[in-house]
């Protein structure tokens, strides 16, 4: 489904952040990526999404056999990729619901489908907002505008729920969430997840993985995946940190 091979990327000053990432994600799988700060986790998500601040030095990222790196940013999204960044951007003045509708209809146009009617979109929106226990105020607000960290993360998952991507890359979705919000967001992700889809979670803590059971856990350090394992790896990391890996 998503195949990342020897992905290398650098920032404008030439510093290489990703130094050869390899990752195979199959339908139905949940991959957790953990690692110390500055190891390249957020960079990985942005490079896959096509953020202009990063330069791809080599490697490939394929989604269902198509090279994402050759696509425009919006084409990557419309092909089924969803990236939730650690700090969702605020866009005052762009209404949340109008933005969601525009995004959904852009995807539908890309896939050769007709625009969704206002009525159907309203129903879809209501259904997903109920799932995430979001109140009506979200409709009137600007995209992430003035929202708390937790509200922004919930808003990101609402977008994920509506856009229905094949692969979602969620960068520290659990940060800024209180206990109840974490449960709601995690339940939302589990609800959206299906055997045809995949999720990559970037997290520092086991607590999110208590709700969303990972198929694999990877440790990213110094721009490379240096260790992979099952869910038990996350528990060990929570208990012992990362130093033992280098020692090993």
């Amino acid at each position, binding site marked *: 489904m998503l195949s990342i091979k020897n992905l290398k990327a650098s920032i404008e000053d030439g510093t290489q952040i990703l130094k050869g990432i390899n990752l195979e994600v199959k339908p139905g799988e949940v991959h957790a990526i953990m690692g110390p700060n500055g190891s390249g986790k957020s960079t990985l998500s942005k490079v896959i999404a096509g953020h202009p601040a990063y330069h791809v030095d080599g490697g490939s990222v394929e989604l269902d056999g198509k090279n994402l790196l050759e696509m425009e940013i*919006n084409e990557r*999204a419309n092909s089924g990729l969803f990236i939730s960044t650690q700090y969702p*951007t605020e866009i*005052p*003045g762009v209404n949340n619901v109008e*933005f969601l509708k525009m*995004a959904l209809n852009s995807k539908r146009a890309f896939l050769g489908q007709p625009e969704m009617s206002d009525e159907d979109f309203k129903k879809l929106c209501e259904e997903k907002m109920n799932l995430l226990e979001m109140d009506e105020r979200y409709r009137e607000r600007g995209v992430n505008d003035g929202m708390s960290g937790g509200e922004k993360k919930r808003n990101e998952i609402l*977008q994920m729920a509506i856009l229905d991507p094949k692969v979602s890359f969620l960068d520290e979705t659990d940060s800024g969430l209180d206990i109840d919000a974490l449960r709601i967001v995690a339940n939302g992700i589990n609800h959206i997840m299906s055997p045809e889809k995949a999720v990559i979670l970037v997290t520092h803590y086991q607590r999110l993985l208590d709700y969303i059971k990972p198929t694999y856990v990877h440790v990213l350090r110094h721009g490379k995946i240096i260790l992979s394992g099952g869910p038990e790896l996350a528990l060990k990391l929570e208990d012992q940190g990362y130093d033992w890996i280098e020692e090993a």
Partner: protein
Amino acid sequence: MSTATSKFIQSLPNAEQAIARLRELGMPRRNNELWSFFPVAKIPTPEFMGTDFATSPAANPAAPPTTAPAHSSSDEAVQKETDFAALLPIANLARPMIREIADGADEMAMLKCNNDFGHTVLEIGKNAKVSLEILDNKVTHDIAAERFDINVGENADVEIFFANPACDLPLRFRHFNINQAADANVRFSSICKDTAIGRVSVECHLKGEGANFDYRSLHVLDGEASQHSRLTIYHEAPRTTSTQLARNLLSGSARVSYDGSVIVGYDCTGVNSSQLVNTILMSEDASVSVKPVLKIYHDDVECTHGNTVGELDAEQMFYLVSRGIPKKAAQEMLMRSFAQETFLPLPDSPAKKRLMSSL
């Protein structure tokens, strides 16, 4: 109100006085602060009452300037008038449309001049609530000039706005002279999408304690458009407040200037004034010139000014596009939000509805 009305109206210049004053001032030049950003060479030399302005005494320094005989209460006012655009409609014999709005009235009105040169005089009574939309005038020549003299009574609440469709008139001037009594509140809002050369000048006198003037303008320009704003706010009483927010979205070779002055007089304690100009340049050839001027003659005041020039926010663009929205549509969304934010703080009113719907 009739006594006050007569005073106010009598203080306005007549055509003869306006022509005389224009001859004294001469044609606008770039070295005149009022016109420093304006393409003055585009202004044709006017003819008044069959007399070629170019052959007037002002064009011949040896000849003494002709002034109107001192015969009316307007003499002092007209001698203070320094803006060519403010005098032009009167000198061109614009027949003043005089309207009085009674104390406590609640009115909505649309103003439209029927000629190239228009002069509107409004006397708004105490506690009145007025919404004035200014429509484009019917233009038959290469130049149009409109003047508005608006006297706002105590505690009146007035909104003045225009959001005209794009106009290709080669040269257009609009001049507003606004006087506000105590606690009068005026909101002045405009959207300009014109494609040629234009200038809006506003002189606002906050004469009564507690008066408030709120100015919001948006220019959405492309091509060779060249639009200029000149604003002077006189805080002439204590605890008066003013806000200026000018936003520009410029493409092609469009050019905008904003020359905004705030003058706070002696003994005007507790004045609060802010000025902010935000510009987004969508092309390398688009340009903006901004000149803030603060003249403050009292210590206990708060005046701020700021100016930003940039492109569309790259992170916001990325966010929208990363959700599948095509680049062009994302740009339009951001431009629209930038534009809408200009008017979002306005209270719900006909002005807000009209301005937002025209974006």
